[in-house]
Every structure is written in structure tokens, then in C-alpha cells.
């Protein structure tokens, strides 16, 4: 119940942040060089009346603050404006593309968390032994290597040389396969995984490396804690000391980092989608920038901003859930 109130409280709190995101995005988009009407004309000479008609149609003749209010009025109704270049509503364009991006980012996170936490604990437990040194090297590699380079190398090794995994595109798990029998779904699922594997690793490696190092440090600290000493002194079995007494208090910074790194992950997704030819939001953003499609750039920027804010809220909520010391902002 308190958690629910806290969630609502945090959501309400985030409204000014979201307004800030739209305002800055709007101003930047309009400060950028290039007149949308001129872009539509591709440099053709036309008469003034036509230009004015078009400006009126898109509301470009109004002052900036009124245009912003109009844009916001549309936004609250889910209308992100109209892509001039593609002649389609921005919302529809993004809806087509957001699924693959979310799939990619979430799977990269799952990959990072599932690998980094056991490896980090292992490194902490085997501190300064070979396992720890190997994990240190892997982490250093992961942190210092750009994700797109890892992507290209994975393609070279697994697609080009070995020919075992596809190098481009995703198969979407939410599409119904042609064969709707059980085995059809099974084959579909297998196909989804095959396509997802390389981009997921490429995007997830940085997160994995960061989380692994933090997990190691946290576990080492926690294992030296007085409460671990106490648990051992009362005969708690070593496995349970590690998995319960040392583990849980060590996870708080991990959650923070997962939340904050969402920005890096979303940024990385833009490049990974390009390398692996995935039709996601990131690729759409790059295309929109190349086409100087301001409405679309604005829409995508705002949506990514929103996703980040939601990520941070989820982080805060899970923090409050795990750490009893975090107050819910309502206490005296």
C-alpha cells in the first residue's frame, strides 16, 4: 500500500521532468537550421502564396510559444505531429519501430544481469585467484570496447566465418508464425533467439562488464561486513551466508546502476540497430536526422526521454522495495 502511494507520488513528481524534456527538445528542434517548407520543396521555386498555405497548414506561421502549446496539446492526446518527409503521423512511425528497440534493450539487460551477478559473486568469492583475474580482464575489455565494434566482430566471427548465426534483422516474438502448431511456435521461438543473440551480446557486454565489477566490489564489502561475521558466528551455513546475508544488502548500487545505465543502453541501441540492420527506433532516429525530419526527431527524442524517466522511477521503486531504510517521502 505504501509502495503504491510511493509509485503514484514518483509518477506525479516526474511530470515537471517530462515537461522539461519536451520543452528543451522543442526549442532545440526549432533552433536547428533549415526551414521545413523549403525542405519539402527540395529547392524548387514556387510562389509565395503556396508557401504561406503550407505554413498555415502545419501551423508554422504562429509564434514559437503558441506552436509549443499546440504541440503539447497534441502530445497529451498521443499526437506527435506529422512527419513531413514520410507524410505519416509520427506516432504511427514510432509504434512500428519501438517494439524491436525495447526487445533489444531488455534482452541486453537480461543478458547482462544474468551473467554479471553470478560472475561478480564468483570473482568476490575467489578474490585474487585466477577466476578473479579473468573476470577483471573480461570486464576491462567490455568497458573499453565500443559496442558497435563488438557487433561487427561478432558478425565477422559467427555470421561470416562460421556461418552459424544471422547477421541482420530480428524475428519478432509477437508475430504469429506461419505454422501455428506447437512445433511451429517452437521453431519460431528458436528463430527469435538466433536473431537476437548477437545484437543482444553486442549491446549487453558493456552493461555486463560494469555490473560485474560493481557486484564484485559490493560482495567483497558485504562479505567483510559485521553482519556476515555475526551470521557465521551463529552457524549459518556458508552457502546461505553468501546467498542471503551477504547478497541482499550488496544489491542496492546494482539497481541504481541498472537504472542509470538505461541511457547508455538506449544510446548503444541506436548503433547496434544500425550494425545489425534492425528496424528499431534508433535506426529511425538516424534516418530522421539524415532527412532533417524535425517532427520525427522530436518525437523519438521525447519517447526515449520518457523511457529513461520511467526506468529511473522503476529503479527508485525497486530500491524502496529492497532497502527498508529508504523512506517513501511521506514520513514525518
Amino acid at each position, binding site marked *: 500500500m505504501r509502495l503504491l502511494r510511493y509509485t503514484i507520488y514518483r509518477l506525479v513528481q516526474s511530470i515537471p521532468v517530462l515537461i522539461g524534456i519536451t520543452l528543451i527538445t522543442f526549442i532545440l528542434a526549432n533552433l536547428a537550421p533549415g526551414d521545413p517548407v523549403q525542405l519539402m520543396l527540395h529547392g524548387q521555386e514556387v510562389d509565395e502564396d503556396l508557401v504561406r498555405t503550407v505554413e498555415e497548414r502545419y501551423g508554422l506561421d504562429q509564434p514559437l510559444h503558441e506552436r509549443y502549446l499546440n504541440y503539447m496539446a497534441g502530445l497529451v492526446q498521443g499526437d506527435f505531429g506529422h512527419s513531413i518527409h514520410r507524410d505519416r503521423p509520427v506516432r504511427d512511425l514510432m509504434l512500428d519501430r519501438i517494439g524491436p528497440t525495447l526487445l533489444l534493450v531488455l534482452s541486453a539487460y537480461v543478458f547482462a544481469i544474468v551473467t554479471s551477478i553470478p560472475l561478480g559473486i564468483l570473482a568476490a568469492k575467489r578474490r585474487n585467484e585466477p577466476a578473479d583475474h579473468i573476470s577483471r580482464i573480461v570486464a576491462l575489455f567490455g568497458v573499453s570496447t565500443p559496442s558497435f565494434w563488438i557487433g561487427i566482430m561478432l558478425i565477422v566471427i559467427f555470421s561470416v566465418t562460421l556461418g552459424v548465426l544471422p547477421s541482420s534483422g530480428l524475428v519478432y516474438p509477437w508475430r504469429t508464425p506461419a505454422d501455428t502448431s506447437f512445433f511451429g511456435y517452437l521453431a519460431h521461438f528458436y528463430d527469435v533467439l538466433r536473431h537476437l543473440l548477437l545484437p543482444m551480446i553486442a549491446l549487453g557486454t558493456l552493461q555486463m562488464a560494469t555490473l560485474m565489477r560493481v557486484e564484485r566490489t559490493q560482495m567483497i564489502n558485504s562479505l567483510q561486513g559485521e553482519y556476515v561475521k555475526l551470521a557465521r558466528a*551463529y*552457524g549459518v551455513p556458508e552457502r546461505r551466508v553468501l546467498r542471503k546475508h551477504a547478497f*541482499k544488502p550488496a544489491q542496492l548500487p546494482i539497481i541504481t546502476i541498472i537504472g542509470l545505465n538505461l541511457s547508455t543502453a538506449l544510446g548503444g541501441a541506436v548503433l547496434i540497430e544500425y550494425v545489425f540492420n534492425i528496424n528499431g527506433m534508433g535506426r529511425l532516429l538516424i534516418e530522421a536526422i539524415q532527412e532533417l525530419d524535425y517532427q520525427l526527431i522530436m518525437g523519438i527524442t521525447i519517447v526515449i526521454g520518457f523511457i529513461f524517466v520511467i526506468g529511473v522511477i522503476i529503479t527508485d521503486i525497486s530500491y524502496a522495495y529492497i532497502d527498508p531504510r529508504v523512506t517513501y517521502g511521506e514520513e514525518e
Partner: protein
Amino acid sequence: MTEPLLRVENLKTQFFTETGTVRAVDGISFEVNEGEIVGLVGESGAGKSVASMSLMRLIDSPGEIVGGEITYNGETIFGLEEGPDGELREREDMLSPERMRREIRGNEIAVIFQDPMESLNPVFTVGGQLREFIELNRDLEGAAAKEEAIEMLREVGIPDPEERYEEYPHQFSGGMRQRVLIAMALACEPNLIIADEPTTALDVTVEGQILDLVDDLQEKYGTSFIWVTHDLGVVAEICDRVNVMYLGEIVEQAPVDELFYETSHPYTNALLNSMPRPDRTVDELEPIEGMMPEAINPPSGCRFHPRCPDAKEVCTRVHPDPKVVDTVDGDPHRSACLKRDAFDVGYDESPPIDAEPDVVAAAGSGAGGEDDE
């Protein structure tokens, strides 16, 4: 005479660090009888905590118990023997790590740590932690363990134990947390409780309450205690017998009244003179000169000699092991000071220590100076 509950003989615990071997505990021997509170006193770094953790075999790497024997209630907690190739190996009757965990820790010997703020796990409820230890060390499960936990919280004077059971450590004050730690120790119904400076982190009024509580509970349950502290005031209040530690060694061992009124070791004496006492009025307290040296490279001879007001030349050469200097009601009073007659190493004839190093130093620098020019 009956066997003591715990017998420690010549215990040595060392830490193997990059800068050398730290001899944190260097051959201490003492006993704890049933129903007795035994003090382990000394400055920070004297090896008190390491000694007490050694009793439960809870020494983390790079530390290791390297010698001696610990016997608890007829069981060997630690013991070495000579192997066929002359190497020291663990004795066969020494308890296995699994049996140590299952049968000794918590069950037989429980511990109260010094830092109530850090010793409780911040992310679990107080009741949950208490209950876990009860379930591990007693034949109680589920609801019965919870009931016992609440009962113990009430026993140590925590108001509204039913509600407090569900709360987290950060919702407790320092004194209340220390009570929880005491409840943990008592709830496991051990025969021996090691209290490792349990009142150091508390303010004096709370310390008084906790000491009274322990006194009452000790009377009620008859549990033996090893009370680790640097505070002789606390020792006077609750201990039956006292071991004074200095730099990894026990320098004096005596029943508590004997220690205070027939002090035999200059270190104990210095400790007593450095604190205010209700039975003595002095103009000024005398601090002990200097710092305790590192246990990595202890002074030769008597380890206290560089700070000892009574040190003579012989003290720099001869290392004293504690010897019986008196007996009170069957309890020995041991002291490790060469001044005592029991040692007979020519202390009285030995020249004072101060003159010598000065002479050596003067001669050394004089000669060095000439060579340079």
C-alpha cells in the same frame, strides 16, 4: 577439581601479511569455568578480539591459528599433533568445520559483537534475523521459533516486542540494537557467550543498563561469559576473574579483587593509574607513556619494557611467561613480570635500562660523525 568449561592453552593466532607475520595472539592460556564471567582486558590491538574469534575458529584469511590447544567441554576445538614426517597437522579428534558450525557456533558458544550499528543486517527484519538463529541452534521451527524470538526480545527489555519483531534495525536505537544482539546470544541457549566489547559503542547510561541486564540474565541462565573490553571499570563491575592482555600475550591473570588490590604487573598498574577510580582520589591521572608497538615486530624480552617505568636491562633480554605469584581461594594469580620473586632472573641486580641506550646512542653518533669528516 572439575574440568573447566573452556580451556585455552598456549593459543597462537597469526596473520600472514605482505609486510610480515603479525603475531596477534602469541601463546595465551586461560580457562573459563561454568557460570563464570572472565574478563579479557587490554588496549586496542592487544589481540583480544582475535583471541575471542579464535575460540570459535572464525579467523579469516590471511589469519590462521598456528598453535596451541582449545578444549571446550571435552571436545577439541583446536589441537595440533606431530605427523609422521615431523610436520604439524590437525589432530584427529579436532572438530570438523561442519561440526564446528553445527554444534559449537551459536549452539554452545555465542557471541555479542561490539558494534550494534553494523552487526545487524540492514535489509532483514530484526525478528527474522533472531528467528533464523533460533531455528539454526534450537529445536524450534516456524511459529514456535517466532514466539521464542518475541519472548527473548521481551526478556532483554525491548518494549512492544510483537511490533518490534517486524521492524528493521535502522528503526532501533543503538542501545536497543545491543539488546537485540544480546537476545540473539541468549536465545540460542549457549553455555558460553563471548561478549566482544558489547558496550563500547554505547553511551554511559545505556552501558549501565546493559551491564545490569547482563548481570541479571547471567544469574538467571547461569551462562559463562568471556567479556572482552578495554574498560577496567566494566571489569570491576561484572567479572569474576580477569586476564590482562598486552601485545598478544596475557601479562596478568587474577580474580578481580586481587587484580585491583594486589596488582602485580606494571602494565595492569599503569592501566589502573590511567583511569579514575571511586576508591582513590588523585590530583592527576597518569597516562601510559608511548604507543603499543606493532605485533608484527614485538620488542625483545618483556614486550612491555619500552613503556614500563620499572624496566631494567634484564627485561630487554628475558621474555617472561606468566607464573603463579599468589593463590586466592584456590584461584591462581599469575603475572608475567620479572620483578616477581617467582622469576629469579636477577632483576634486582640488573642495571636500569635508561642509561644504556643513551650511552650506546652517544657512542654510535660520535663515531659516525668522525668517520664522515
